[in-house]
């Protein structure tokens, strides 16, 4: 038994070196000034009107995208789970396959699709329909988020749904539940772990992205991710950047703790 535990050694070493210590470095930077003295000034940067606004918009946009993803993904996962094909891996791969086209390129491609004279508007114009003008607006950012993160919502829900024993559903039906009741009382509660894990996997990247807002927002909308990226890469103010990262981390942990309260069962992993 002892020797078996040793197998975790490399992992423990790796995690401590490259996950835990780096986080402590962030904490150190967040609480110190340029001269190395203790300060709270970096953390309080979040309360400047600009940064508060960026955080607010980030929260709003990521909340909406998560919701949209959930609404789109749940029926999708249900339809897929009812397909009695023994090709789970294939379905999963259909969603992972797009990742082989680079994420930046895929997002860029939406520019080409959404622009005023872009592909979609040319088609709409051809059909004499009103043009779609969402490029460089928050709507385009939401679209970008939903597009990029939808697979992370579909897969965990799908994985939970296919594990539900059909006999449970049959039992519910035999006991007189109509389809809506079956769904509300049986299917949905059983799928909650998947939903929770999906929400996590969409909400976190959406909250912290800076690329999608860069590419589809026309530089008019600053998200908290943009502010952090700029403070490291452009203003090279690592202390403020670390302070903001720490605040962001606290936000994520808090919201995940909130979500996890409702998560009782295990499972519901994406892959």
């Amino acid at each position, binding site marked *: 038994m002892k020797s*078996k535990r040793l197998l*975790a050694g490399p992992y423990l070493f790796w995690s401590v070196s490259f*996950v835990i210590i780096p986080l402590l470095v962030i904490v150190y930077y967040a609480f110190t000034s340029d001269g190395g003295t203790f300060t709270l000034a970096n953390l309080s940067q979040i309360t400047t009107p600009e940064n508060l606004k960026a955080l607010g918009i980030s929260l709003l946009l990521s909340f909406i995208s998560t919701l949209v993803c959930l609404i789109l993904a749940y029926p999708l996962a249900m*339809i897929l789970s009812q397909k009695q094909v023994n090709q789970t891996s294939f379905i999963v791969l259909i969603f992972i396959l797009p990742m082989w086209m680079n994420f930046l390129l895929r997002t860029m491609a939406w520019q080409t699709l959404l622009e005023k*004279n872009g592909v979609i508007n040319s088609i709409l114009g051809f059909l004499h329909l009103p043009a779609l003008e969402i490029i460089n607006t928050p709507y385009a950012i939401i679209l970008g988020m939903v597009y990029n993160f939808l697979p992370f919502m579909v897969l965990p829900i799908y994985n939970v749904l296919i594990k539900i024993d059909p006999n449970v559903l049959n039992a519910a039906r035999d006991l007189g539940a109509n389809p809506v009741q079956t769904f509300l009382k049986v299917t949905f509660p059983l799928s909650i772990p998947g939903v929770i894990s999906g929400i996590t996997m969409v909400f976190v990247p959406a909250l912290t992205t800076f690329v999608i807002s860069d590419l589809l927002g026309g530089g*008019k909308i600053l998200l908290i991710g943009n502010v952090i990226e700029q403070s490291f890469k452009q203003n090279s103010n690592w202390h403020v950047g670390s302070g903001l990262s720490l605040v962001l981390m606290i936000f994520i942990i808090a919201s995940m703790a909130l979500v996890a309260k409702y998560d009782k069962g295990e499972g519901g992993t994406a892959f």
Partner: protein
Amino acid sequence: MIRKFLQKLYLALIFIILYAPIVTLMVLSFNQSKTRAKWGGFTLKWYKELFQNEQIMSAFYTTLIISFVAAAAATLIGTAAAIAIQGMKQRWRTFYMGVTNIPMMNAEIVMGVSLMLLFIAFRMKMGFGTILIAHITFNIPYVILSVAPKLKQTNRHVYEAALDLGASPLEAFFKVVFPDIVPGVMSGFMLAFTMSLDDFVITHFTKGPGIDTLSTKIYTEVRKGIKPEIYALSTIMFVTVLVLLILINYSPEEKEDTKTKKKRAKKPSKVKKILLRRVIPVTICVLFLFGGFYYSRESNVMNSDKVVVYNWGEYLDPEVLTMFEEETGIDVVYEEFETNEILYPKISSGAIAYDVICPSDYMIQRMIKNDLLAEINFDNIPNIKNIGKDYMEQSRQFDPENKYSVPYCWGTVGILYNKTMVKEPVTSWSILWDEKYKDNILMQDSVRDAFGVTLKYLGYSLNSTDLDELTEARDLLIEQKPLVQAYVIDQVRDKMIGNEAAIGVIYSGEAIYTQMENPDLEYVIPEEGSNIWIDSWVIPKNAENKENGEKFINFLCRPDIALKNFEYITYSTPNVEARKLIEDDAVRNSKIAFPDLSQYENLETFQYMGTEADQTYGELWNQVKSH
């Protein structure tokens, strides 16, 4: 029936949304025109040029190698950990799973930043190694999470039975447990590989000079317009994977089943199946990987003789680099940056020793002031004679004794407008505040340019440090924001070519190219005056190959080379001899490329104004951007 139909429809819709951008990219890879804004006819030339483009190919193979090694290492560490965790007591298991969840839950940006700070704190050289470490770190959890469920399904008793029957623990593991968890290990590996391949954010923060993965390469190109070769490469990658997947999943299993009744059909079908499902995919993968190792060995066998160049994106004809390497035997390590503001901290921190860099006027002034530049030994640059006297004189504004810099490109900032959308004559910056053009204005996304334009419009100097003047400019910029379609840097080019906007603030060098692509466009320098700028080659103080740097600069000053560059990037060259060589009269005498400077009185060069003013500008700009 209707329900079935609706389901199918819904699936199809989602499918279209998922794959529409991918189809778009594939189509663009066959586009004759270099800009994505215009369809110029069908061509296969980008596929041919792809294999000659050393930068893209090396980025591609770096990506493959990093993804493969990272995924393999993560699979090893992760699988071992998963097995160990499985045998642990509940308390420890919770602890380990908690640790595993940190990278999954944590924001990518926070993780990237934290690793960057760690590497810097321990003075690790940013490069291949640091990217690899970062990738392994975020890959391990995917492996653990794929393997753990499979382990849970294995039957402990079988393992114990094997032990009872005299197998050693190792034997028992490999003969009994391992076969059961192979699917989990494989999918963990594949997942890790895919995640590595697609990662941008973490690589962005942990990479060093001279190394690019596809993602970071694309990110630097986004602002300049993506090179079509990249579309071609992505298409090849995507199609390869698609073919692999189809082979693996749609082997002729079912069809062959019916044939098995015939006597002889069984054996060949099995061979065929193995061939299709295993041999071909594995061969393709191996080919790709070996290609990668071979290629990277080829390009990594560096002579000790090299020169590290840090230049603006798309600011040099790649062929020039090859020519330089061939003629001198010196290897060029070539990196690109997007703005002066990104360049500066890299030079001032001294973390990376560049040999030649190409900042703009005010940034050179700042670097001289902070003692970051080395004096150039002009004995090594005889070709300096080809640079026009006027430009050397102009350079004195930021390099008073002409000791540190060699002019490379110059130009003005002005308004590019579309004659079909703007009927009135454009003479003033005021058009950028005209309600008529709401949502049709493209503004520069950089502090100095945005404020420069506004200050000029207000009649002030674009080097103003007067807080009242700056606040006035800020308010004007905020007032303008609702009219602005987008804040962009070099995408102005593509957007104007594609008739996306009526008016854009643009550098004169881009104007020439856009006019070639779209004759409806016209460039003016507004009467209130504007910015005249020079980008020059300088050598940082910590350069390790200063002489090679000087050779490189000298090479670029050769008329034929300067001409080649001019034709590629279309930015005005200060090289008088090169200008004489331009064949096209219209270009040689172009008012845009080579305006008669005596006509304009109020053109100003940016000056460096000190840290305090920089911060003020930065804060005011942030207020505009986040308004």
